[in-house]
């Protein structure tokens, strides 16, 4: 057998491409590393217990914190999830079950379009349909705007994950006398559940960092509030307000706020991964 040695040119080319891939990864990670570095190094200085326990102080008074904004962000994302998770998952199931139908293609196209709509436009929409009728800014309006943003993400993620479930499982359920709906909700959706959980949390992480849709929906609130019908503070809007202010102390607070937000998102992602892994382990996936 005549085994020719690989020509050097091919080896060099291969090395070149592997090198380019490695370089690409490094370049892609540099901004992330810098963002984390600055947020942590700047944010840690102003981060203390007061930051979590106190509301913002008036201009000139040093100190205070973002207790109201942290709670506000949690309430807003919670509201958004309450709206978007059921609607998003059910639409995802519809899209995967009736994927051939014309209506499903229309819905899919609409979801992709909605996903691409700039978040400020979503804010304007929420302003028109919730804020104007109520007559004032409110937590509900903010949660609504964020929820609208989440729906297409969750719907499309759910659809794609359901399509990955082998058809054999559906046939197995049907052959045992399951109805179509039963097969979907007792076998197919559970099989895709770890992925769906991850998808939902990633969507949450994305909308938790949104500022634009909140500017004229939930607006801001200098005081602690958990009322759904009143304006509410959020970390992002608070960071925005502080960052564009001329006060040195507020800048420090903004950095601390950014750090808290990043940490919340990180904790959510890790919790989701753990939950998904646990669900997966029970099923032996």
């Amino acid at each position, binding site marked *: 057998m005549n085994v020719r040695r690989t020509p050097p040119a091919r080896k060099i080319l291969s090395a070149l491409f592997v090198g380019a891939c490695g370089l690409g990864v490094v370049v892609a990670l540099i901004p992330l590393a810098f963002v984390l570095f600055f947020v942590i190094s700047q944010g840690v200085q102003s981060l203390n217990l007061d930051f979590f326990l106190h509301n913002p102080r008036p201009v000139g008074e040093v100190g205070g914190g973002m207790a109201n904004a942290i709670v506000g962000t949690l309430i807003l994302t919670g509201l958004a999830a309450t709206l978007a998770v059921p609607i998003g998952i059910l639409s995802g199931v519809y899209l995967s079950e009736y994927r051939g139908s014309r209506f499903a293609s229309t819905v899919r196209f609409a979801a992709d379009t909605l996903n691409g709509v700039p978040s400020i436009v979503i804010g304007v929409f929420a302003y028109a349909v919730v804020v104007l009728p109520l007559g004032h800014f409110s937590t509900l309006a903010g949660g609504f705007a964020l929820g609208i943003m989440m729906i297409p993400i969750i719907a499309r993620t759910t659809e794609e994950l359901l399509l990955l479930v082998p058809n054999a*499982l559906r*046939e*197995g*359920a049907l052959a045992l006398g*399951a109805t179509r709906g039963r097969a979907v909700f007792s076998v197919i959706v559970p099989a895709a559940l770890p992925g769906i959980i991850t998808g939902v949390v990633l969507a949450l992480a994305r909308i938790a960092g949104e500022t634009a849709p909140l500017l004229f929906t939930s607006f801001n609130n200098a005081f602690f509030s958990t009322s759904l019908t009143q304006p509410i503070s959020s970390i992002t809007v608070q960071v925005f307000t502080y960052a564009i202010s001329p006060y040195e102390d507020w800048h420090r607070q903004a950095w601390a706020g950014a750090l808290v937000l990043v940490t919340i998102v990180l904790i959510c992602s890790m919790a989701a991964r753990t939950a998904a892994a646990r669900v997966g382990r029970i*099923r*032996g*996936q």
Partner: protein
Amino acid sequence: MNPPARLPRPVVRGSQTSPPAPAADVRLKIDVEHLFFFYGEKLALEDISIKIQPNVVTAFIGPSGCGKSTFLRTLNRMNDIIPGARVEGRVCVDGNDIYGPGVDVVAMRRKVGMVFQKSNPFPKSIFENVAYGIRINRMATSKSDLAGRVEESLKQAALWDEVKDRLHESALALSGGQQQRLCIARALAVKPDIILMDEPASALDPIATQRIEELIYHLKTNFTIVIVTHNMQQAARVSDFTAFFWLGHLVEYERTDKMFTNPTEKLTEDYLTGRFG
């Protein structure tokens, strides 16, 4: 209704294939008359008629693409979920046409269970896999009744001894042969009359295959079994009757011992002796 496009006719020596006539007092379990099956415009099965008695094992053999799996799947309307699939003709199970108007497909499928070529346990525990059908059909009266039914099914499928200490572990951790027996247990749990098996052992090693074959032999006292197989020795070993399919036709349907020793059709003989295709 347009006359269906004809499939190429097999060369048949006799005027027609005569299925073994059942004794007059035996009720037919499955009675298929003049069944045509289409994938869209394409004719896949032409004029299939077959009568199957209760408590026998019937094997469908034939080359790949001859329509034997398609035919098997018409017997519990599993082809319904394929877009563009269409059936003409009658398929009677216990005397009732399952393609007739007003048929409850879901209830029918409970009576006609199916085991697939590739084992397809649900990503749940061993117990939950077997309990699934019992639960969705609301067959168990209590928790202990459910557990009893699960145990009985696993015993029937000759899997109980291997899994009794780990019922709540994932079914996906089982070996391929165990998974297939679990799928059989799952099918048995809903107490079907008929079990359709689509090449149940084709992905298994010889030892696991032997266990499945022994299982089939024991199951026929309680169930009517129809098995599709590529393996002619397997058909000879497990079945009482054999049906040979070729290009969408049922060429010959005979007692297995007769078919394998003295087939009526030349085509059957050629296939069984490996002389064509």
